[in-house]
Structures are given as C-alpha cells and as structure tokens.
C-alpha cells in the first residue's frame, strides 16, 4: 500500500475507535456544583469557576451574602490561588473540584482578611459589586472563553453559612455522532482504496 | 585505450595505520583489473578512495578525469558492487531498480535489460531480503548495470557465494566485459577466481602495491608442473637425473619449471611414457598469493 493510503486507513481506524470511546465516556455539555460553606467574621469566601478546555456560560447563585463582588481573570486557572498568595493573602483553605468531562474546575478558597481585601484585589483586575436580586440570593452570570476564570468574592454574610449553586453549560462544542464518524471512516477507506487502485493501474 | 581511473601516490591513514601507502594505479578502458591481496591489504580502502567515498590524505585520484571526492559527476558511468550486497529492503527489487534507473535518466526498459543481463528474471518482484545470497549479488549487479556503466568496481563480488554461484557471477562479469565492453576493477583474495576473468592483476599488501602485470607474467612466470602418473618414484628419478627440482606427493610429481625448460620436460615425459610410466594428467600450478606477496616484498 502507498503511504497516503496507509495513513488514511490509520485515520479511519482511529476515528471509529475514538468515536466509540467518546460515545461511552465523552464530554458532557452541562455541569453543576453545590456547596454549603461556613463563613465566619474576618473570613472572605472566594469561589472561582475556571474553564479549562471548554467555553460556555456560568451562573453562580449565593444565598446569604450581604456583600458580594465578582471579577474576571484570564490565565492558567491553577495559579488562581497562587495569585492571591502573591498578594500576601492568608489562604486558610482551598479545594478545587474538577469536572473534566465538562472542561471546568471549581475552586473554593477561604481567606483570612477584612472586607478591605477588595481594594487589594483590584490590583488583579476590575472588582464589580453584585446587587442582590430580591430576597437573599445574589446571582452572577458570565460567559467564559477557554482559560477564563470568574471569581465570586463574599466578604460579609448574613448567616454563618452560605449556600452556593453553580451551573455551567458548554457552548460552541459539537462533534460527529458515531454514525457520522462511521460514514466518514468509510469514505476515507474508499479514498484509500481508489488511490491504491489508481497506483496499481499506473505501475 | 583511455584511462578511466588513475591513482598517483595516494596515501590514506587511519590513525597511525597507513591503509594506503603511496599507491599508484591505472585502469584502462576495456580491462578487467584484478585487485589481489589478503584481508587488510587495503583493497576496500583503495576502492572507496577511488570512488570518492573516502578522503585521501595525499596523492591524486582521477575518475573519468575528475576528482570524485570533490565532483560527483566523476562517477557518471561508474557503478559499484560492494562486498556485502546491500540494497534498500523496503521496496520490491523491480520498484527499487526503477527508481535507481530514473536517477540515471533511464526507465523501465533499462530495468528489464539489467534484470535480464544479471539473470534476475523471475525474482524481481521479491524484496531484497527475500533473495538468496547469489540472487542478492545478481540484484546488486543489475543495480550496477542501471548506470549504463562504462566502468564497474566490484569489491569481492563472490565472497559470500557458494562455488556454483561464484562461477556464475564470474561468468557474468566476463560476459559483460566481452559483450558490453564494460571495464572492471575487481578485488579478491582468491587467485583462481580473479585470474578467471582478469586481464591484469595488481597485488596489494599492507597498503602498498607489491606487484602488477598480466596473470601469465605474475602467476606462471615460474610455475610448478604437477604430473600424475603410475610410477612417481621412477619419473622423479628420471627428472632429477636431468637436473629438475622435483618432489613427490602421493601419485603426483611436482616439478619446478623455469623459462626454457618446457621442451626438455616434454621430451623426458615422452621417454618416461615409452619406459612404462603411465601419465594420467599434467597441469601447471601458478604462484600462490603468499608466493606473490613474498616475491613482491623481496622486490
């Protein structure tokens, strides 16, 4: 077989197998995160949502926050907490939760700091106050490109604990269905066969 | 006859070892030059330097009038058959030969002709590794023929072959020289093989040319006659009485024959035959490689 035919066959085999794997264990287009977090006096809650490989729309709802802000950061999401540490902030707890199949990571960090921390954070980017939309729930909505982070900061709460709900829906992602992949593979094999037949006729 | 290859005072060192020591040599069109010498004599180095595949430390090499180390066009019309025939193994022989023919501006017709001349017909669809040792050598010869060569350099072309294949390859070389007019430089350490096809011999030892000349000049200058007979003792005593240097080995009588002794020897053999000694066979044995090397060293 000629080299182009061999490569085409290799691609078609890889397509079929990867399509089956993708169908069984492939990407999810929705992701959510829920948590109840204790927020004492002098403690600031950070909730980061970072899109690792995907892009999409995020909605963060926080119950019980009296003073809440959000900011957008770009860059490597793993360095988010390190960026806070670089500002000499005492990060007392941090726990990332990955949802690789949705391409997103949620990072919760508790930082020992006064509400004046917001001024320090403005060194990293614009800090935007969030107005409570009726009742006691504050909502932040944002569109995330790959590598974007949205960080929600709760400096004061009306209760000892706050409830956090995050929903993330992937946008701009689609791949071939297994049937489409199978048809594409067959088409590639047909091209390889034609190339091979043409070569044999020529030589 | 024009000179195809000329080496003048060529020296090549590997560290402290002189692989070629002031070697001078000429190969003329139409000749088959046999390069004789034991292993390590410098034959392969001479071939590689002659083709420009190796640098020389001093001296002059002209192949087709050009320095092959500097100018690759010196190798136009020159082909090589290496000691271990080795060709790329990933293509079928015919496909490989086709691409090699294209390198020389030829095509499929040249491939068919080379395959036929080399006696490779019926095996050209195999891969090189699938061929027997003899067929590999034939494939290497077919490969060499694609250059439409005027000159083929063959480095021990029969060394890995069985006796039957050796003979066939030598016959092929003789045919190519006779019918196609191709000039050959053939290295070997086996005298009978080289003398079978060579018109001139060059003997090398320790990187130097120690002797050169036609096979008859070099090998049969002072040959030994080996006479197989029914009564070797009687024949030996007759020959000794006439002044010949003789020794008996079984039913053979070995007689040193100098120039001018042939007539006397034939007369004595006739007399011996009349006196009841039955002569079965007479042949002349040429000098051995060791004898050639020692005669070269002494000169």
């Amino acid at each position: 077989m000629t080299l182009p035919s061999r490569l085409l066959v290799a691609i078609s085999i890889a397509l079929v197998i990867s399509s089956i794997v993708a169908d069984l264990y492939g990407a999810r287009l929705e992701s959510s995160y829920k948590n109840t977090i204790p927020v004492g006096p002098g403690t600031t809650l950070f909730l980061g949502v970072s899109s690792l490989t995907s892009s999409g729309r995020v909605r963060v709802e926080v119950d019980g926050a009296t003073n809440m802000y959000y900011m957008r950061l770009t860059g490597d999401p793993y360095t988010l907490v390190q960026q806070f540490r670089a500002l000499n902030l005492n990060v007392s707890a941090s726990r990332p939760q990955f949802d690789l199949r949705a391409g997103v990571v949620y990072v919760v960090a508790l930082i020992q700091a006064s509400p004046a921390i917001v001024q320090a954070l403005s060194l990293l980017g614009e800090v935007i106050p969030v107005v409570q939309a009726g009742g006691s729930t504050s909502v932040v909505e944002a569109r995330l490109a790959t590598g974007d982070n949205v960080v929600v900061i709760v400096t004061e709460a009306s209760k000892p604990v706050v409830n956090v709900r995050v929903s993330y829906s992937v946008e701009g992602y689609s791949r071939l269905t297994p049937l489409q992949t199978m048809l594409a593979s067959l088409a590639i094999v047909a091209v390889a066969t034609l190339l091979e037949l043409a070569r044999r006729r020529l030589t | 006859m024009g000179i195809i290859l000329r080496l003048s005072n060529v020296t090549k060192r590997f560290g402290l070892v002189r692989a070629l020591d002031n070697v001078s040599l000429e190969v003329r069109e139409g000749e088959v030059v046999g390069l004789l010498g034991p292993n390590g004599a410098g034959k392969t180095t001479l071939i590689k330097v002659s083709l420009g595949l190796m640098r020389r430390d001093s001296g002059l090499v002209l192949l087709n009038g050009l320095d092959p180390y500097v100018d690759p066009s010196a190798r136009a019309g020159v082909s090589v058959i290496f000691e271990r025939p080795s060709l790329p193994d990933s293509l079928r022989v015919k496909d490989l030969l086709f691409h090699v023919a294209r390198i020389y501006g030829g095509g499929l017709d040249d491939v068919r002709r080379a395959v036929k001349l080399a006696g490779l017909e019926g095996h050209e669809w195999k891969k090189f590794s699938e061929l027997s040792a003899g067929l590999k050598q034939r494939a290497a010869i077919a490969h060499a023929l694609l250059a439409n060569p005027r000159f083929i350099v063959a480095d021990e072309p029969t060394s890995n072959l069985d006796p039957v294949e050796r003979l066939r390859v030598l016959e092929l070389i003789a045919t190519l020289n006779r019918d196609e007019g191709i000039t050959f430089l053939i290295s070997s350490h086996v005298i009978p093989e080289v003398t079978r096809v060579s018109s001139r011999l060059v003997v090398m030892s320790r990187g130097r040319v120690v002797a050169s000349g036609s096979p008859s000049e070099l090998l049969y200058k002072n040959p030994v006659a080996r006479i197989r007979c029914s009564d070797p003792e009687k024949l030996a005593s007759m020959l000794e009485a006439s002044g010949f240097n003789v020794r008996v080995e079984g039913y053979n009588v070995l007689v040193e024959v100098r120039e001018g002794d042939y007539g006397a020897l034939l007369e004595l053999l006739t007399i011996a035959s009349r006196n009841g000694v039955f002569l079965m066979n007479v042949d002349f044995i040429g000098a051995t490689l060791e004898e050639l090397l020692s005669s070269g060293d002494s000169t």
Partner: protein
Amino acid sequence: MSSWTGGLSRAYHVLYIDVSDVLRPPGLDVLVVLLAMLGAILVSIQPVTSPIIASRIALDPTLIATALFLAIRSSAGLATLIQNGILSVYLTYPIHKVTVAVILFVSRVVIPSALILATPLATILILLGPTLYKGLDVILGMYLAFLFQSTLYGSIFILIAVRVKSQATSGILSVAAYFTYTALNLILTGIGGAMGNDVVRRVGEALYLPDIAYYAYSNLDHEVWQLTLVPTLTILVLVTYLAYMSRRFEVL
C-alpha cells in the same frame, strides 16, 4: 532537461527510496493509529472548544512519540544504513554528498515528523470539525511549532548517527539527548522561576516552542525572541550536520 531539474529529479528518486525505508510498515502504521486514537479520545472526553487547546492536547503526547520514533527509526536507522553499506550505495549515485545529506534530513526527520504530527490533527479535525474549523489558522500555527520542535530533535539525532555510525549507540545517545533536552527545559524554567531570574526562566520556556506558541496565541506573557530560539537552534544543528557530512564524513 536542465542540470538543475535533472539534479532535482535524481534527488527525488533517492528521497523516495529512503522514505520508503524510514516509513516502512508496520511500525509507522501502528504508531499513527495509536497516536491518532489517543489524540481523538483526549479531545472528545472533554468538551474542547479552543483550537489551541485541542491541538496541544493532541500533539503534546504525539511529540514525545515522534521524538522516540526519530531516535529509533531515523537516528539508529541512519546508523544502520551506514553500517550495512546502503549509504555507500547512495553516495555512488551522481549526486553531491551535501545533497545526499539534505535528502537524509528530509526523509529521516522532516517527512516522518510532518506525517506523524499531522495524523492526530487530521483525525480531530474530522471528529470535531464543526468546533475546530474556525481556528484552522491557529491549528496550523501550533502544528508548525510542534514540527519545528520535532525537527530540532531529529537534527540532533541524525548528527549523532553520522558521528557515531553505530546503530545501538546512536539509538541510545539519541534517546538520552531527548531526555537531557527535556530536562534542561524543565530545570531552566524551574530554576529561573524559583530564583526570580527572568532571563533563565524565559530561555528555559523557549526551549519548548509549543509552549511559546500557546502563550502567543493565548495572549499570555512571552517575548518575541522566545519564538525564534528553537528555529535558530535547529538551523545551527542542521548547518553543523551538513558541514560534517560534506567535510568530515566517511563511509565505513
């Protein structure tokens, strides 16, 4: 036919013969199936929407495999070519030694690298076509970055092969050279970062061109000269190889 086109035609046929040796089945076929499959699986188990990320996910493991393929098939393979006398056969063709050297570089470094790296990309472009087509230019840019990196490795490997002329030694030395280079990349980046030495850190980062291309496409911190380090090193190694082949190299 002019001598220039004649020379090109001769070079093409030697190239064809040598490429057939380097890319002979089944080694290449098994490798590209595995790499294409790995790349396609990695980009389909997560919803990759960025062409930059998709090409990195597919090509980072492919580059490691390509480097090892080059070390074994190209470097050790070239040494075998020298040992078994096939290179001597190439050199008896009426082609200049430097041309043969260039052919060997193309057939044993550029073409295998280009094909092995292209196969997973082609696979993910088919599988994630609707998502990735908008970023074809970025994917091409990332591909070229990986190709340059692979070409640098390959250039080092064939220089080793023509110098040592031994199959086993050149294979081992090439693998060692690859890991040494990778370690140097990590060590310089790490030391530079830890010591706050920006120059050392940036040199370390620049030893891996795909990282810099990723930074450039993602608008992350980088300097323009970092994009030129790997191509410059490749050219230096290549010039050394060609000079060695034309002036010092001798067949066995």
